[in-house]
């Protein structure tokens, strides 16, 4: 039996689809949104539904053997985990966005609002630009409009929310998709089961 931490929300539906393609039926899990543990004897797995940013903690501390987590979270947290497979789901982009009148050239320092302080400062420090990062937990798009920051670093899938708030993409930071992560001890103790899972998912992703 292996335990997999899955993120609630948008990514969960795509995960269910992917697992279905690999002949592992876990649709039960989206039928009752209050249920947080789902067990399937048949598929030999137990699923935990957790907050997307908590997946890595569950896996790193061994509460789950594997997890499904966005590359954005992995980049931000720098976890001690194996990341053997890109699942090619939950695709979006990490971008820098700013109001239309933002002048990109000649800047030596920037004030950035973001949910990803580490990614934001790493990205600009490499370019030799000093950053002042303001960590926000939501509605990041608001920050440059009302002058809280010069730019934002955030995820975007279609760019709709940015457009609605009169923001434009200034630069792309990274392509983001969900990865399968594995606890380092589990990989050594349950290697057969986990390698099987990786193979199955690799075939259908």
């Amino acid at each position, binding site marked *: 039996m292996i335990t997999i931490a899955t993120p609630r929300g948008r990514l969960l539906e795509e995960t269910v689809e992917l697992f279905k393609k690999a002949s592992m039926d876990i649709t039960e899990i989206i039928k009752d949104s209050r249920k947080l543990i789902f067990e399937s004897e048949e598929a030999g797995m137990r699923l935990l539904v957790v907050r997307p940013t908590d997946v890595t903690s569950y896996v*790193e501390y061994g509460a789950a053997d594997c997890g499904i987590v966005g590359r954005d979270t992995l980049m931000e947290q720098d976890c001690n985990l194996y990341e053997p497979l890109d699942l090619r789901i939950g695709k979006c982009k990490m971008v820098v966005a700013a109001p239309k009148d933002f002048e990109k050239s000649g800047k030596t320092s920037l004030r950035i609002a973001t949910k990803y302080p580490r990614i934001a400062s790493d990205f600009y420090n490499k370019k030799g630009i000093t950053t002042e990062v303001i960590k926000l937990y939501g509605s990041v798009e608001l920050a440059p409009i009302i002058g809280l920051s010069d730019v934002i670093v955030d995820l975007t899938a279609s760019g709709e929310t940015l457009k609605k708030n009169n923001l434009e993409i200034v630069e792309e930071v990274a392509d983001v998709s969900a990865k399968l992560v594995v606890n380092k001890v589990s*990989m050594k103790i349950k290697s057969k089961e986990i390698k099987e899972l990786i193979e199955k998912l690799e075939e259908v992703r």
Partner: protein
Amino acid sequence: MNRFLTLPQGVKDFGPVKAENLKRIETVLLEEFSYWGYRRVITPLFEHLDTMTAGIGEDFEHRLMKFVDPHTGEIVVLRPDITPQIGRMVATQLSDHRYPLRLCYSGRVVRYEEKGSGKEREVFQLGCELLGLSSTQGDSEIIALALKSLNRLGLKEITLNLGHTGILDAVLRDAGEIRDELVYALVKKDQERIREIAGPSGIPEDVKEVLFSLSDYYGDADILRRAARNERFKPCVEEIISVIAVLEEYNIECDISVDLVEVKGFEYYTGVTFEIISSATPASLVTGGRYDGLVSRYGQSVPAAGFAIDAEVLMQHTKSSDGENQVHFIIVPKSEDLRGDAIRLAEWLRSSSFKVILDLDGSYADMIDSNNFFDGDGSFATYGIIKLESPSKIKLVESRTGSIREFSNLEELLAGGGL
């Protein structure tokens, strides 16, 4: 809370129960090490920065706890690992010893871990080093000793994970400028990224073969057969196989898994490496391996292998020894003039290995008189309370039953009290 009352990240206090458990683990392990002929050495808490980085490698330098020695102005470092210290000690002070040399240690090491990583900065380590033996016989003894030591503590359901530095050495030797990126991808076992980076690189084809089918090089012990098909790495695989054969002779029962492409924390390993893990904890119980190049960094070429056990991780796995260190007797003299008798009795009991508290301020006397003192669990003293009421009236109150026996003098109590 007041800042001056809080501890820095990653360190903590141990109350009596934890401290006693840790002590018990230390005693059992050091005893087992001594049964195998390993003799204990003690190394200093801090050393010169250069001395330490010579052993553990420059890559590790940012994880050290450094400070300036106020006497000399030199940078010194709290030891992050005891193995390099033993390497230095052997090369500089024990160089005329007869090899093989078997040494063990118990001590605390300090590491800098990133804030919020949840990892301890201070680690209680016990370990063994077998110096002067380059064969897999040496590797086998070290691994067998590590496993047997854990058995002695009653640990079951552990997995031995074996590895070898040979493959990664070959991979990284020719990696050139992609080295750092490749190491990072290998740490993550990120097969796609590895393929992306290594594909166009100048790494030899038979080494690339490993990188492109990475998952054939870690897993259960079956992968050894497959891995041995790669001619270049066959000798590495054979070393592991011969270690496993010796372990079978020791009659060791544990699951064995293999990872030939694991990036190890310390760069000084040079051959067979291993880790002992358990599904109950994300941290390794034991890490170790061969480090033939380490001692020569201190001026003498000596092959060696060893391991370190994390005693605190082990403690979470072993039964606690509650009660083992509880007080046996409390002696309560009713008045000042009975103090001499009380001391004499306490000393006699202590010399017979009983743990005895002498009531100094009458605090126990008050409790004895209240009814709730004996709740049957002997939580104050496991055997009983001895109350000296007068030179000719001594009461023994047994903790287990609550029954009271009276004696008319100390000699009678000592002779007939069944103590």
